[in-house]
C-alpha cells in the first residue's frame, strides 16, 4: 500500500502520483493521511485503484473519477465526486452542496446527510444517501438514479429530465415538472440492486416512493409559464 501524508506532501504531488496509475498497476491500494479539508483531493483518477482518504476533504474530492474506488473517512465539502464517470466514491460522513453534480456514471454513496443540490444536473451517476438531502436536489437531473433513505428538502427534482428519484422519507416539496410516479416491479428490482451495491441491507424497497419528470415542460408552451 502507498501512503501519502498530505501534512508533508503537496497536493500536486499526490494527484500527479495518482494520475501515473493506469489499468494493471501494481500499486492498487492507496492511503491518504491528513487531508485536513484540502480541495481537489484525488481528482481525475483514471485507474482501478482503491484510495482511502483518512479525514475530511474540501471541495471536489474525487472529482471526475474514473474506475477508482475512493472512500472518504470523514465529511466532504462541496461537489464531491462531481462529474464522476465510473468507479465509486463513498463518503463516510456528511457531504456539502452539489454532491455528485453532473456525474455521468459510477456510484456515489453518502453515509451521512447531503446538503442542497445533491445530484444537480446528474447525467447517469447513481447516488445513494443514507441520511437526508437538502433543497433543489436533482435540479435539471438528466439521467441516473438518486436514492435517499431519509427526507428530501424543498423543490426536489426541479426541471428534471429522465433521472429517477427514490425517497424513503418525506419530500418537503417537488420542483417544477417533478411528480410522484408508480413503483413498478422493475423499479423495485433496480432499487434493490442499487441498495445492494451501496451495502445497505436494513431497508425494503417498498418503503420508497419514486419521483420523475411529468415531461410537461419538454417543449415551450406559453400556458406553462406559471410553472417557473
Amino acid at each position, binding site marked *: 500500500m502507498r501512503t501519502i501524508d498530505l501534512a508533508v506532501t503537496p497536493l500536486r504531488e499526490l494527484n500527479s502520483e495518482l494520475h501515473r496509475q493506469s489499468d494493471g498497476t501494481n500499486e492498487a491500494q492507496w492511503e491518504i493521511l491528513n487531508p485536513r479539508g484540502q480541495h*481537489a483531493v484525488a481528482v*481525475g483518477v483514471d485507474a482501478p485503484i482503491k484510495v482511502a482518504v483518512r479525514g475530511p476533504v474540501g471541495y*471536489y474530492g474525487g472529482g471526475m473519477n474514473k474506475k477508482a474506488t475512493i472512500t472518504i473517512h470523514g465529511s466532504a465539502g462541496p461537489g464531491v465526486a462531481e462529474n464522476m464517470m465510473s468507479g465509486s466514491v463513498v463518503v463516510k460522513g456528511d457531504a456539502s452542496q452539489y454532491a455528485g453534480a453532473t456525474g455521468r456514471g459510477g456510484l456515489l454513496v453518502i453515509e451521512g446527510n447531503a446538503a442542497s443540490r445533491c445530484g444537480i*444536473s446528474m447525467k447517469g451517476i447513481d447516488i445513494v444517501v443514507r441520511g437526508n438531502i437538502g433543497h433543489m436536489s436533482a435540479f435539471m437531473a438528466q439521467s441516473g438514479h438518486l436514492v435517499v433513505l431519509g427526507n428530501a428538502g424543498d423543490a426536489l427534482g426541479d426541471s428534471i429530465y429522465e433521472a429517477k428519484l427514490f425517497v424513503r422519507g418525506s419530500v418537503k416539496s417537488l420542483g417544477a415538472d417533478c411528480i410522484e410516479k408508480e413503483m413498478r416491479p422493475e423499479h423495485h428490482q433496480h432499487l434493490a440492486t442499487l441498495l445492494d451495491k451501496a451495502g445497505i441491507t436494513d431497508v425494503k424497497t417498498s418503503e420508497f416512493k419514486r419521483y420523475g419528470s411529468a415531461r410537461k415542460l419538454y417543449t415551450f408552451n406559453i400556458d406553462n409559464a406559471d410553472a417557473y
Partner: protein
Amino acid sequence: MTYHNPPTTPRKSATFDDYTLSEIRRAAQTGIYDIRGGGAKRKVPHFDDLLFLGASMSRYPLEGYREKCSTSVVLGTRFAKKPIELKTPITIAGMSFGSLSAQAKEALGRGATIAGTSTTTGDGGMTPEERGQSKTLVYQYLPSRYGMNPDDLRKADCIEVVVGQGAKPGGGGMLLGQKISDRVAEMRTLPKGIDQRSACRHPDWTGPDDLEIKILELREITDWEKPIYIKIGGARPYYDVALSVKAGADVIVLDGMQGGTAATQEVFIEHVGQPTLACIRPAVQALQDLGMHRKVQLIVSGGIRNGADVAKALALGADAVAIGSAALVALGDNDPALEAEYNKLGTTAGAYDDWHEGRCPAGITTQDPELAKRLDPVRAGRRLANYLKVMTLEVQTIARACGHNHVHNLEPEDLCALTLEAAAMARVPLAGTNWIPGHGGGGF
C-alpha cells in the same frame, strides 16, 4: 360646407416602426417570445467610430512589404505549463456541435489550423471531427456540462470556463427540438426532440471564491498543463475582469453584446449587456490596476469583422480577438447565392437568423443531414483560412502605417474617435481635438 383636411404624406411612427409592429403581431399570434440566433442588430457605438491617425512628422511608418510586423501571440503564460502560441491574434470563438453541423465544426477546425490559430468547442461537447482537424482546440467548460469528461479535458489544448456570453450575459444556452438529433441527444444525455434549455449558472460553484477552487481542480486534473480561460459577457467589465484575475485565469475572454449566440430570446440579445467598444477599456484598466496587463491575456469578441476592427481592439489593449458570426459568413452563412432558399424561409440573405430552426440552407446551423451535406468542410475551411489571413494582413498594414513592428505595439494614442460616445467609451480623443469626454483636455 364640409371641411377636408388637406392630405399629408402617410407617416409611420418612429416608436412603433414596422419591425416593432410585426413583433407585436407575432407575439400575439404565437404566445411565445421571439427566439433567434446572432448578436445585437441594433446600431451601437462600435469600432467604425474610431480611426487610426497613421504616421506623420512625429512618427515614422514601416515599409509595407519589407519591414517585419509580427502577429504572433502567446496565450496562457501566467500559470499553465504549456501556453499556446498562435500565428495570428484572431481566434475562433466557441460554437457548439448541435447549434452547428459536424461539417461546420470541422470546417472551423480546418480553417483555423491553416491560419495558425485556435478554435473552440461549445455547449455540446467535443466531437472527433473537430479535435481531429483543430491543431489548437479550446474546450469550453459550461454550466450545462454536456458531454464533459476528463478524457476530452486532457485532449484539449486550453480550457475555457464560460461564465457569460455577450449576447446574453446572465442567460443559458438554448437548443430547440428541431436540432436535437440522435447524435446531439446522445452527446448531451437528453431525450431526442425536446426544447433544451441549458443552465445559466454553473452547478457546482457560485462566485469568484468558488471559481478559484474549481480552477484549482481543473488544473489538478490536467496536471497544470493547460491554459485556463474565463469567458465573460460584457456586463461589468472592470469588476468581472478583476474577479477573473483573482479566480486564477490565465486568459480572459470578454464578449460584447454584438457577439452571437445560436439561439436566445430577441429581448435578451438586444437589451442586456454592453457594446464591445464600451467593455475594452474598463477591462484593460482592471488588468493594469492589478499589474496583470499582458500577464493575463485579454481576448475580445463581439462584432469583429475585419482587420481594422482587430487592430482597434488590440490598440485599446486586447491581446487577441475572437470571431464567431464572421467566421460563419466566411464558411457560407447568409450567402446571396442562396437567396431563393432564404426567401422560402420568409427572409433574405444577410438577415437570416432563425438558426434555432435548423433549416439553414448553407448547411451550417443545422442538424438535418441533407442540408449539412451541402457544406464541404475542406472548401469551407479554406474560405475561412483565406478570410483569417486577409484580416491578419490588414492588421499588419495598419500597424506598419502607425510605425509598429508588432501588432501588440498598437496603442490608444494611435486612435481618435468620430463621435462623442466612442471617444468616451474608448477613452481616445474626439477627432480634431485632444478632448476625451470624462477625462479632461481642451479643444484645438
